[in-house]
């Protein structure tokens, strides 16, 4: 008995829809929050936030209960790949979103704008990032990226009467639009050369294409993703946006934005390893870009006195290292990158939260020396998180870097590719360079601490403090115990 084609198609569709249930849920939640915001008056503006938080917690619990999928599945005729890695990234993004919500409540309480839209945009960004993390097709990746980016543009310029924020938002948008255009042009070249836009078919079709044409096409496509990830030379928006966007948004872009961008790059390079194309020439290009990003980010941060600009350049440096890992590829580096993204998410939220706690003393670090003993809580937080970002033991930052350096060495000894060694050496060198500027906030807060100005005794929001403590404990715990379980699970 032959099965009718229509029912087969419907079955595949049902299966695909079931596979993206979390994203569908997020969309429904988005619409619900939008509707609530339309019909509830101003005074209950945070209702939307609580609905959003509740929905996200439900999503987290559902994801944890359901567990990772037993086998990987291609949904929507190869558009998406639903597998264990995707489940992990969904968890990371959901967890990150919850953290951002906690951070944004205190921010929005003081503001005068309709908070409901904020949560809608957050959900939109989350959905886009979630789809990015599971993409298997360039067009879907493009759509998801645009969805996340557009929400990001508006979120950056959220505070409407802040000119620098509007400036940053516009810059973000212009860069984004330009990169998208470049990427689309690259995609058209890829389609013309290869006839497919699926990640998993890419190596097969581009193999026969001459290196010059293929490299141009792939580089143009890469430009769009590199822009989202904040890699040199598509990074110019990063310092301004991190500096001027509202704190929760900056933390969001730095944490979840990077998770989404690198999850997407991981998907692409897992399915189409750079080393397989044109005798490793494409890999070479990527490694060079990674080295440049690492150097640029870490060196430019040296001169910064504005806290968030410092964090912005440091995130460019981290992006460079992550690009190196994702380009060289392999299961060990895939696991290491997944772990690095988790640790980086925790750390970046922590440092932005600490920055938000230190807002009463401004954002220019030299002024922080006036913080005195009133700032003890954020100072302690920074004393744990900044060395972690620098990669010092016994924090998770060290184990995250170790989780990348060891597989990179292994890759070098197996492939004997000098570029890998160069990248590894540069990763180690930039760790050294990074320490200098990661210590700077501590120098201003601790070494140059002036007599306490007792007129300023701000009340730190409890939610932020609690979140900060939990993050610091997580950072120290993951630095010493059980990170191997996570790495083994990711690599399996």
């Amino acid at each position, binding site marked *: 008995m032959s099965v009718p084609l229509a029912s087969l198609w419907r079955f595949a569709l049902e299966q695909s829809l079931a596979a993206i249930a979390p994203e569908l849920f997020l969309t429904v939640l988005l619409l619900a929050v939008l509707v609530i915001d339309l019909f509830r008056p101003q005074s209950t503006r945070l209702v939307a936030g609580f609905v959003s938080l509740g929905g996200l917690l439900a999503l987290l619990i559902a994801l944890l209960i359901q567990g990772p999928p037993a086998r990987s599945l291609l949904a929507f005729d190869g558009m998406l790949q639903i597998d264990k890695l995707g489940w992990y990234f969904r968890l990371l993004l959901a967890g990150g979103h919850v953290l951002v919500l906690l951070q944004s409540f205190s921010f929005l309480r003081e503001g005068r704008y309709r908070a409901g839209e904020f949560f809608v945009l957050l959900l939109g960004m989350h959905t886009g990032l979630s789809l990015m993390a599971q993409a298997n097709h360039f067009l879907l990746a493009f759509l998801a990226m645009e969805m996340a980016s557009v929400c990001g543009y508006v979120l950056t310029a959220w505070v409407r009467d802040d000119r620098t924020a509007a400036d940053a938002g516009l810059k973000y948008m212009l860069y984004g639009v330009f990169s998208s255009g470049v990427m689309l042009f690259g995609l058209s070249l890829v389609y013309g050369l290869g006839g497919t836009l699926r990640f998993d078919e890419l190596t097969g079709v581009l193999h026969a294409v001459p290196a010059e044409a293929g490299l141009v096409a792939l580089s143009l496509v890469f430009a769009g993703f590199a822009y989202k990830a904040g890699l040199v030379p598509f990074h110019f928006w990063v310092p301004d946006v991190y500096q001027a966007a509202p704190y929760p948004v900056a933390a969001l872009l730095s944490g979840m934005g990077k998770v989404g961008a690198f999850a997407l790059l991981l998907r692409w390079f897992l399915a189409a390893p750079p080393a397989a194309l044109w005798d490793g020439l494409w890999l070479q290009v990527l490694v060079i870009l990674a080295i440049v990003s690492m150097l640029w980010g870490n060196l430019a941060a040296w001169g910064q006195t504005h806290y968030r600009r410092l964090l912005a350049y440091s995130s460019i440096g981290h992006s460079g290292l992550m690009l190196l890992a994702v380009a060289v590829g392999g299961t060990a580096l895939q696991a290491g990158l997944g772990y690095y993204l988790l640790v980086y998410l925790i750390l970046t939220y922590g440092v932005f939260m600490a920055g938000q706690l230190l807002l009463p003393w401004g954002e220019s670090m030299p002024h922080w020396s006036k913080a005195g003993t009133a700032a003890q809580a954020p100072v302690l937080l920074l004393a744990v998180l900044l*060395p972690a970002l620098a990669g010092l033991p016994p924090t998770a930052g060290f184990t995250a870097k170790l989780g990348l350096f060891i597989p990179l060495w292994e890759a070098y000894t197996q492939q004997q590719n000098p570029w890998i060694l160069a990248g590894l050496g540069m990763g180690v060198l930039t760790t050294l360079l990074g320490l200098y500027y990661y210590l700077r906030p501590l120098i201003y807060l601790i070494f140059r601490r002036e007599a306490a100005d007792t007129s300023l005794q701000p009340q730190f929001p409890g939610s932020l403090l609690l979140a900060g403590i939990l993050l610091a404990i997580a950072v120290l715990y993951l630095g010493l115990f059980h990170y191997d379980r996570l790495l083994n699970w990711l690599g399996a």
Partner: protein
Amino acid sequence: MSVLTLLVFLPIALLPVYIWLPRVGWLRALTGLTALAQLGVLAALAPTFWAGGGLVTLHPWIDLHLGDALLKIRYELVMDGISYTLSLLSAGIMLIAVLASDHITHRPRLYWILLQLLNTSLIGCFLAQDMVLFYIFFEVMLLPMFFLIGIWGGARREYAAVKFFLYTLLGSLLLLLVIAGLVFSYPVMQGGVRTLQFSFSTFSNPGYLEAGSFFADGTVRTLAFWAMFLAFAIKLPAIPLHTWLPDAHVEASTPISVILAGVLLKVGGYGLLRFAIGIFPDVYLEQRHWIALLGGLSIVYGGLVALGQTHFKRQIAYSSVAHMGFVLLGLAAGNAVGAHGAVLQLFTHGLIAGMLFLVAGALYHRTGDLAIASYSGLWHQMPRFTLLAAVAMFAGMGLPGLAAFIPELLVLNGAFQAASTGVFAWVYPVLGIGGILLSAAYLLWTFRRMFMGEYRTAGGQAWALPDLNRTEWLTLSLPGIAIVLLGIWPGLILDLSGPAVEAFFRQVHAHAATYLSFSQP
């Protein structure tokens, strides 16, 4: 729980008390008691080491699956005679530093917490056998030191602290690079599974070296040895990597200088001996003459620069550089005699430099001025102080009867033996002797300038220079007694570390022969 774990983690285990105890004054006593407890444990262990034994603690910790291989980071602590000696030094110096910290009024709680963290990481460094564990302790040492120098230091403390941190981190990262790479070339088959261990016993065993692997190649081994050497030479410090030391020592407060000179520098010497030489014995034996060169340079350069100093603490700092040059020279000799001398020099220098910094500290707390020219004829004003300062300074010169003579003698003996067999040129041991002469020159000159002659100070009548009070007496006599004791009875330490040093060098020579046989067709 093993005694080694207790020894390492006792200070950290008490940290919750430090955070919540309301009476901050008790924290100093608690820190001192911790150091005393560690000394007690070590004293109880002494018979084991006099008999030439050792102690091991081994637990699985982190197991990573890398493809078909299993990467293991283990909680592995090993104490042999060498680590026993240095742990003894570490606990003793920590006790002395606690005694010397009676002037800490600024943020005391943080100070004591940082000292306890430092205590754990220092002893951990000497005991860790797994190289990732060692690296963790090695790095954890840096952050408390950074804060200790930067918060309680002198005028340029921030500059000194940042320079210290960045300079030593450079070395650490080189070490990390080598460690991460080595693990792939020394696979161990355990139960059919290709196991990659970071254990020093694995890396030092040529039997595990995989033929054709990355670190089987001679050039790579040479580069890796020098990378590791660099990492530890920065800490030692050896010329020309020493520039962080004078600033760090001058700017740090007295007890921190004592710990820095007394123990931190020894970690560099220990790392060189145990890890750099232990893992790459073939490169070491082949290229000893370079180590001897650096040693000779350090001795002479350190001595000459010390001669020209006008700041007392800076002079002691450069004299530390010179003394550590003896360690390098002794290690370069490649025979057991030289190594005995090097290890003993590490121990005695810790005591002597510690005592010299305490001498400087006593003056600094009275007047705040450490220029040598500001003092003259202190003998008349502070006779008891002069006695102890004389012990310290004469010991620094290597006067027979005081602690530094025997190790320097052993080092020179070993160096001359090596020179006579053509390992390196005669000039290096001769430079060593010249270095002793130089140390006599600047220490005697400083002693004469500051303590002899008629009593005259830069502050004149405004400076009250009372003699030592009871705490200072105790603080200074403890290392003083140890220095005199070791001068007469160096066997106290030599018998503890001796068997381990002998065994270690036998292993070095045996393994080097094995490595050389690999490269022969």
